[in-house]
């Protein structure tokens, strides 16, 4: 049975400096949770607090219902994969895997059994007698994961484990970690600053900023219904477009005098200033369904093959917009195109950045 983790108003202070400011979080058994956010948002600190490497200044950390604040790292049933892998450079791969088991006082036979199993799972059997420095980056990564597997922990923590790998290997390891999670079924927490990793791997994404949870939920929930402008802008690539709008009468907003029918009640008084958010892939060009937004001049075209990215300067408003069109297009710099949107795809945020739901 996999493990639950609960954080109740968890805080971390260094002197007068608040790093984590009251985090409440529920992690379901067997879930793959990703902490994501810009650097300095506290995601690594939070992970290390769960691991037991950082003390908890306030609030409770519960694992399977038991309070863990004062329990030593090793007794929390947690294994962690570090960004730098932290393989013991003076030990062979075998010794690296066996070290934790030896520390825990396992019998030699059992250690051998477990190490060999883990090595087979991760296909590192051939390197068991090498020192870490004789391994490639990907192999070291596997050893680091292997070291966490052998102890059969309840929870796995990953601290930006792929950031030292090249792009190709990163994609490959991403898939392997996801598969590992499917096979083991353990509760896992994964920290990254890469929103693609977050979107592709997570059951639950927790977006952090300034030591607070901005939003937690499934990847599509966060993508489709961002709770605030920060989450909306952080997830998705290219980034969501934002433009200032003013609420008009009759379920509409005006974007620089251009009227957009929202078709849903906004529950905001007319005359208020809002921010409109629309994802690049939700803007179309030319004739089609939805509402015309006006004309724009193409500044730059990026042909990605599977899709085409346009950077356009609308004749309404001043902010340049990004548009992603599926497939290939013959647009050129300097062309003037008609933009159109489906009002259902529009997000609205108030002056504090909070999402306004219809």
């Amino acid at each position, binding site marked *: 049975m996999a493990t639950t983790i609960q954080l109740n108003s968890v805080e971390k202070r260094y002197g007068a400096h608040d790093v984590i400011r009251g985090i409440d979080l529920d992690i379901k058994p067997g879930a793959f949770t990703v902490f994501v956010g810009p650097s300095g948002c506290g995601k690594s600190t939070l992970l*290390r607090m769960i*691991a*037991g*490497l950082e003390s908890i200044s306030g609030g409770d950390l519960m694992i399977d219902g038991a309070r863990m604040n004062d329990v*030593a*790292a*090793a*007794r929390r049933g*947690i*294994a*962690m994969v*570090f*960004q*730098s892998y*932290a*393989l*013991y*450079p*003076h030990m062979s791969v075998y010794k690296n895997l066996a*070290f*934790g088991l030896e*520390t*825990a006082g396992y019998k030699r036979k059992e250690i051998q059994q477990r190490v060999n199993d883990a090595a087979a799972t991760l296909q590192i059997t051939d390197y068991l007698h090498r020192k870490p420095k004789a391994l490639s980056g990907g192999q070291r990564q596997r050893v680091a994961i292997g*070291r966490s597997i052998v*102890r059969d922990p309840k929870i796995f923590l990953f601290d930006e484990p792929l950031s030292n790998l090249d792009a190709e290997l990163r994609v490959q390891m991403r898939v392997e970690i996801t598969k590992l999670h499917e096979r083991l079924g353990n509760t896992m927490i994964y920290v990254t600053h890469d929103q693609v990793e977050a979107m592709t791997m997570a059951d639950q994404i927790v977006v952090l900023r300034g030591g607070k949870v901005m939003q937690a939920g499934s990847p599509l929930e966060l993508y489709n219904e961002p709770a605030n402008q920060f989450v909306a802008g952080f997830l998705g690539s290219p980034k969501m477009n934002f433009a200032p709008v003013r609420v008009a009468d009759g379920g509409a907003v005006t974007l620089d005098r251009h009227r957009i029918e929202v078709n849903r009640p906004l529950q905001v008084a007319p005359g208020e200033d809002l921010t409109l958010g629309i994802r690049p892939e939700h803007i179309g060009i030319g004739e089609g369904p939805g509402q015309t937004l006006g004309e724009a001049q193409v500044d730059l075209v990026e042909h990605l093959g599977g899709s085409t990215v346009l950077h356009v300067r609308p004749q309404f408003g001043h902010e340049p917009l990004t548009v992603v069109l599926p497939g290939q297009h013959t647009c050129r710099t300097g062309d003037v195109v008609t933009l159109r949107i489906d009002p259902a795809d529009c997000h609205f945020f108030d002056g504090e950045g909070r999402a306004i739901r219809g």
Partner: protein
Amino acid sequence: MTDAVNDMPGRGSAYPRLNSTLRHALLIAVCIVMIYPILWMLSGSLRPASELFGGEAGLIPSQVTLSAYPDGWFGLQVTFGRFFANSLIISVLATIGNVLAASLVAYAFARLRFAGQNFWFALMLGTLMLPYHVTLIPQYVLFRELGWVNTWLPLIVPKYFAVDAFFIFLMVQFFRGIPRELDEAARMDGCSAWRIYRKIILPLSMPVLATAAIFSFIWTWEDFFGPLIYISEMENYTVQLGLRSFIDSSGTSSWNELFAMSILSLVPIFLIFLFFQRLLIEGIATTGMKR
């Protein structure tokens, strides 16, 4: 820092005028001046006592004899063999103490967290510059009260209490260079602080431990002041004290024997120099060791 002492051939310089041959000639001349006195002492130890002392500035003895070595060896009531054994025991025990104590303390400063840490660290650094003369007399009184005068204990026991802050500082610097994530991984692996020290930090610190051990050994071996004040019976003399007695008892009449024993007293240091030169030089270059 280590590559500071590695060679970088082809490195440009501001002083291209001095051509290479001239430079080498100059350096070789300096080398000769540096080494000549030691060679002169070596050659002196091989001359017969009858060969008038000093009148000879050359290196080649008119007649080579090894007799000064056995004569000097047995020249005092107690043989130099005993002095060498004493010095060796003291130096080895002192070295073990220094490395053990300094590494424990350095680990606490570099890796553990505890209240008052910065305060103690500052105090420790403060003792680096403190001349040992201020503690000399009360220490002497203390050891005298303990009945340790004329034993080796005053030369050995303090090292087990990390009195030489220099070694602590040296090791703190090194330990700080070991990635902290290794400790954290070990903690996740269930290691106690002791086990991390023993299984992670120490094995990864062999270079600095060796450097500390070598310097500790050499300094204890060469120490004259400590034995001079604490050891009175010739049975317990170190080599350095033995040499001093030799000067007093024989004056310049058997200078070839004095030279022979002097040469022998330098042999252990010279051997260490031959085998561990790199560690010694790196140790100095990276930490600014005093000599």
